[in-house]
């Protein structure tokens, strides 16, 4: 019996969200008294044996370069074959865009109950019950998986990475050739930006900034903090900022350690996307802005005066 953690990589690094999933999987495997195995698909120069530092003893690597990793069917086939080979009854994903395509597919193939958006380890004293976000972050649900096989897709930034020492054995995994009916024509990647979904700090701004030309100070603050930038829906709808920066109910839901909201009033739909952030800072000139009720720290003031002073204060700190 074992547990497999689907481990994603990008630019020859294991993703931070996958390290969270590995830490979660190792903790769960410990509770279940079974072995935790990381499964890596596709060629990568990331040092896979170092995943031992996160508690896995084995890394199974399907490194066939012919695998089209954006085809959910191919990925589901590889994961289910690896699960058969290693008698895995539990599969852990980080709830990334890739997982959203693959985990449900695998759930059907393995007849394994699926919980997506998990925020905590399963409660094993209450059958096998996993807490997950529902109502776009406005509540949690405790969902019991009834089937013997189980799949959990863990929310990003919901579980702390646990690192110690150790080396993992890397085991190559070959699969039969998998054909794909998806013809990829073009891939556009935005290089160099900090991924908003994975970021542990986010600086976000709204209509209070009056126009796209005023984003310089937001970007400067974000760069100084090592944060990703985000925006509210009206800002994305007005094309002041790209749509992938939109956080909120109909945009991206994020859970960074620090969320700084500048000139965002905090409509319920926006709060839904950010209220799992650990520390929320609100800067708004309207003392009645509903966002202050959801904030940990706040400044009632004009962003055009406050933000440059914050930038100055951080620069002083860094000296």
């Amino acid at each position, binding site marked *: 019996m074992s547990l497999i953690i689907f481990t994603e990589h990008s630019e020859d690094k294991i993703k931070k969200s996958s390290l969270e999933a590995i830490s979660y999987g190792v903790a769960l495997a410990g509770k279940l008294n079974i072995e935790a195995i990381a499964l890596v698909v596709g060629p990568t120069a990331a040092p896979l044996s170092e995943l031992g530092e996160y508690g896995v003893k084995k890394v199974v690597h399907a490194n066939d370069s012919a695998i089209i990793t954006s085809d959910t*069917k191919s990925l*589901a086939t590889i994961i289910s074959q690896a699960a058969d080979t290693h008698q895995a009854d539990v599969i852990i994903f980080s709830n990334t*865009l890739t997982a959203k395509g693959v985990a*449900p*597919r695998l759930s059907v193939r393995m007849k394994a109950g*699926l919980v997506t958006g998990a925020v905590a380890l399963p409660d094993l004293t209450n059958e096998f019950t996993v807490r997950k976000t529902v109502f776009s972050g406005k*509540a949690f649900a405790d969902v019991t998986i*009834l089937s013997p096989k189980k799949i959990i897709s863990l929310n990003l930034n919901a579980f702390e990475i646990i690192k110690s020492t150790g080396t993992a054995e890397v085991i190559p995994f070959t699969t039969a050739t998998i054909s794909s009916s998806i*013809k990829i024509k073009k891939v556009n990647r935005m290089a160099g930006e900090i991924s908003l979904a994975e970021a542990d700090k986010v600086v976000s701004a709204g209509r209070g900034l009056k126009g796209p030309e005023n984003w310089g100070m937001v970007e400067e603050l974000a760069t100084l903090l090592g944060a990703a930038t985000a925006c509210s829906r009206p800002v994305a709808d007005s094309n002041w900022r790209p749509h992938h920066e939109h956080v909120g109910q109909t945009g991206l839901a994020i859970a960074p350690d620090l969320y700084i909201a500048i000139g965002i009033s905090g409509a319920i739909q926006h709060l839904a996307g950010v209220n799992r952030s650990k520390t929320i800072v609100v800067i708004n000139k309207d003392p009645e802005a509903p966002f202050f009720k959801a904030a940990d720290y706040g*400044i009632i003031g004009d962003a055009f005066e406050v933000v440059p002073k914050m930038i100055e204060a951080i620069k002083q700190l860094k000296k």
Partner: protein
Amino acid sequence: MKILVCISRTPDTTAKIAFTDNNTKFATEGVQWIINPYDEWYALVRAIELKEKDASIGIHLVTIGGAETEPIIRKALALGGDEAFRVNAIEEDPYFIASQIAFVAKEGGYDLILTGKETIDHNGSSIGAMVAELLDMPFISLATKLDIEPTQALVTREIEGGEEEAEISFPLVISCQKGMAEARIPNMRGIMAARTKPLAVKDPQSAEKLTTTKAFVLPPAKSGVKLVPAETPEILIQLLREEAKVI
């Protein structure tokens, strides 16, 4: 060309989220119900836009739920669906729901099945991929653009850190998100026509439930905001560093 659009009923985005019966049920009192925004604005409206370019396209709708879901089905028909199916069952476990949709889809023989990227209540993001697996079809998640040619779909979708353009032969399943189409409201003619469009009620097929929801929990309330004077933002920076320990 036949398109099946999966429609779910959800509470309005501004609905108060509360629970009853010892936190086991969503408190529906005073709640306005809408078509799940992703299903409506992106999946359904894009299907309608495609039909406007090619009138031979048929748009069918499928919903899993009791009679209480019929107003939103009628609204979807008013927007431009041709006919609808309601599978008369409680929508709970994603595998059960996907099994019902797959059964309807198999009977209808669709070229294209569209879903929203997720529902705003369950946030499962699971149904499209499950239906694809049950029907052994390709699945494209989180599409932001969709065009069709006689034998294939041209799709742009969001991937980690960017986007990808692909061609896929029919039949296939696509989950839709922002970028696909512009929201619209039904006109009077559509509303009148929707009253007489076919809405067939089907009994559910037997399918397993792999999960069950035991209880709901509301997040703990914030203890209150600590305000820093606008003249001294450096104090905020100091608090973030020394008290919150986040920078």
